[in-house]
């Protein structure tokens, strides 16, 4: 198990496990060796991009440019980036409401993600979805879903469809795997248990990834979830292989997920991943985080996934300071541009109110069309 390969006695806080307790985790790769340094720098860039985007998001929220609920991904960037790197571009993914990181990691331009939160026509969903509902057909992102756990049956359905299209319609072996993300707070929703049973029963190639940040809103995993120290036991109960992965380490995520995804692809079977991580910010923008101590937060903050990848590159002489500086500047400019673009993007016209309700126009419903982001793109 990769994350216990570097045990530390100087870490008094462990939001996931009861130290010393056995878990049912089979070994994951334990690898965190350097892949192509250029690729690694790209991941660092992607993580820095999410971090900068989310920091600016919080500002925009404070400035009331963003309404509704807004859930910040800071601290969990290694997961979206590492998982995206481990799958093929046409492997579908679906996630919950903390979804900006997945959208950006998958390739959505920052402007369309930001404009969606601004409620503008240039948003990925024309401003009709908001922060919790990022969709991107070009990059095979099937949302962004606001109801806790509801996206897991959808994810199993995406994987079912991949397999059905290959095997039943085209008569060839299954070639795709779906990733379905949830938080540990979704572990006690019936929908995910029904979905895991179906995935196990019907041999559905879906990797269910629990971004286990230890908190279900303000309830720690041990206050809300039985066997909270060993959540993969729940998947094992459905005949699904479970893995524990260090979600604070992009290289571990990449190596472990690559192995898990390829096994699922090859065997056409589901898997469950306990992706251990920590949410640096509150559950949403209105969360004062009184349920945990500054000491605990500081410990995890000192183990920042971005810092880890940076250090890894620096130790190998693969991240000259000038390169990092240039990278950071580009990212700042890109996010600044995304905000300016989103501000300039018009509000959705009133004709959008009755648009995209039905494919077929009838009555007051005036059909459907793709968002600006996808117009003039061949999406076959």
């Amino acid at each position, binding site marked *: 198990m990769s994350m216990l390969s570097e045990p530390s006695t100087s870490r008094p806080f462990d939001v996931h496990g009861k130290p010393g307790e056995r878990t049912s985790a089979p070994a994951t790769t334990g690898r965190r060796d350097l892949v192509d340094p250029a690729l690694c720098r790209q991941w660092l860039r992607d993580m820095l991009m999410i971090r900068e985007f989310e920091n600016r998001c919080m500002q925009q929220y404070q400035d009331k440019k963003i309404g509704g609920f807004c859930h910040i991904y800071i601290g969990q960037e290694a997961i979206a980036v590492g998982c995206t790197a481990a799958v093929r571009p046409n492997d579908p993914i679906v996630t919950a409401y903390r979804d900006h990181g997945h959208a950006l990691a998958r390739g959505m331009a920052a402007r369309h993600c930001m404009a969606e939160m601004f409620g503008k026509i240039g948003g990925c969903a024309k401003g009709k979805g908001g922060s919790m509902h990022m969709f991107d057909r070009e990059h095979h992102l099937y*949302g962004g879903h606001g109801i806790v756990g509801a996206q897991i049956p959808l994810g199993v359905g995406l994987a079912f469809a991949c397999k059905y299209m290959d095997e039943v319609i085209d008569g060839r072996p299954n070639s795709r795997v779906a990733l379905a993300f949830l938080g540990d707070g979704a572990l006690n929703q019936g929908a995910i248990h029904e979905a895991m049973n179906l995935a196990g029963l019907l041999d559905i190639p879906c990797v269910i990834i629990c971004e286990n940040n230890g908190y279900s809103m303000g309830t720690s995993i041990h206050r809300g979830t039985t066997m909270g120290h060993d959540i993969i036991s729940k998947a094992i109960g459905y005949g699904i292989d479970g893995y524990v992965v260090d979600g604070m380490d992009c290289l571990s995520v990449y190596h472990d997920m690559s192995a898990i995804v390829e096994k699922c692809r090859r065997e056409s079977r589901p898997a469950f991943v306990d992706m251990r991580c920590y949410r640096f910010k509150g559950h949403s923008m209105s969360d004062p985080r009184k349920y945990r101590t500054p000491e605990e937060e500081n410990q995890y903050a000192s183990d920042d996934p971005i810092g880890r990848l940076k250090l890894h590159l620096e130790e190998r002489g693969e991240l000259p300071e000038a390169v990092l500086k240039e990278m950071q500047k580009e990212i700042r400019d890109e996010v600044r541009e995304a905000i300016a673009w989103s501000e300039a993007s018009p509000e959705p016209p009133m004709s959008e109110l009755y648009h995209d309700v*039905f494919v077929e126009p009838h009555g007051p419903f005036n059909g459907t069309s793709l968002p600006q982001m996808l117009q003039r793109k061949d999406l076959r």
Partner: protein
Amino acid sequence: MSTVTVIDPTMTATREIEFRDALREAMSQEMRRDPRVFLLGEEVAQYNGAYKVSKGMLDEFGPRRIIDTPISESGFAGMAIGAAMMGLRPIVEFMSWSFSLVAADPILNNAPKMLYMSGGQFGCPIVFRGNDGAGGQLGSTHSWCVEGLYSNVPGLKMAIPSCPEDAKGLMTTAIRDDDPVFFLESERMLGMKGPVPEGDYLIPFGQAKVRREGTDCTLVSFGRPVNFCLDAAAELAKEGISCEVLDMRTIRPLDIDSIVRSVRKTNYCVVVDQSWSFGSPGSEVASQVHQHCFDDLDNFVHRVHSADVPTPYAFNLEQEYLPNARRICEAVRSCLYRA
């Protein structure tokens, strides 16, 4: 059964089959035509369907396309919605719509809203179908009429056939539709026989059918109670009251134009809806008729619904609970000031 006058102008039905056979013919014809269509649900495959609607389909299409699921409505409905988002065309059988309540989140929060929430990126071409309504002494939890609850939600279509011919034509349309369709059948009608054309044919959504022409009162209904209306109309004819019976066939979309046309002729309207009265399709129809026909009506729109109580088990209570022919006759007489 009461006389059914509808015949599709392009086809002539030369044989009579059961409602359940008509449903199966539509599904099988569409599955032969389009490999993206598949059927899943409890007992649909090896058991041949809890109500034998899918009888023989496993033999023809195999277990990859006729899929037995565990009793897990939330899971398999959600799974089917995910598959529909990718472009497949699932038919989800709920053994009873009563059991769909545990899948309320996926069928109401995902399927009808996906196109909107994704800004036009992901539609949901899916059919949810199963038995709806009381009549089999199943007690209240198994006797749901979900049309009142579900038709409230924008983004879905709702078809409620009243005879075998419509069952096949509306099901074919439902499967080819690009939007989510809630298809409400009735266990009490599955054995009903009627003329059904052999080929594939479409009955467009949002087009009501005049089941019986009349001049004195418009009876508006959908699904099984259309047949109660026809019985009532036959009874009232003996008293010299001529009822026009309109079968809506779909309530989302609702063909209000046909209702208005009829009411402008008869000046009286009685709505017969087997769901509960409060916030129901019946109250919606009444409201729209009042809006469009305010100056044409010689009385307010009368409504016949299931009684506003949990469905009782006892045979006599259940029969009285339903909008039966006697209660419809009483409502018509009352509406026409002949009570």
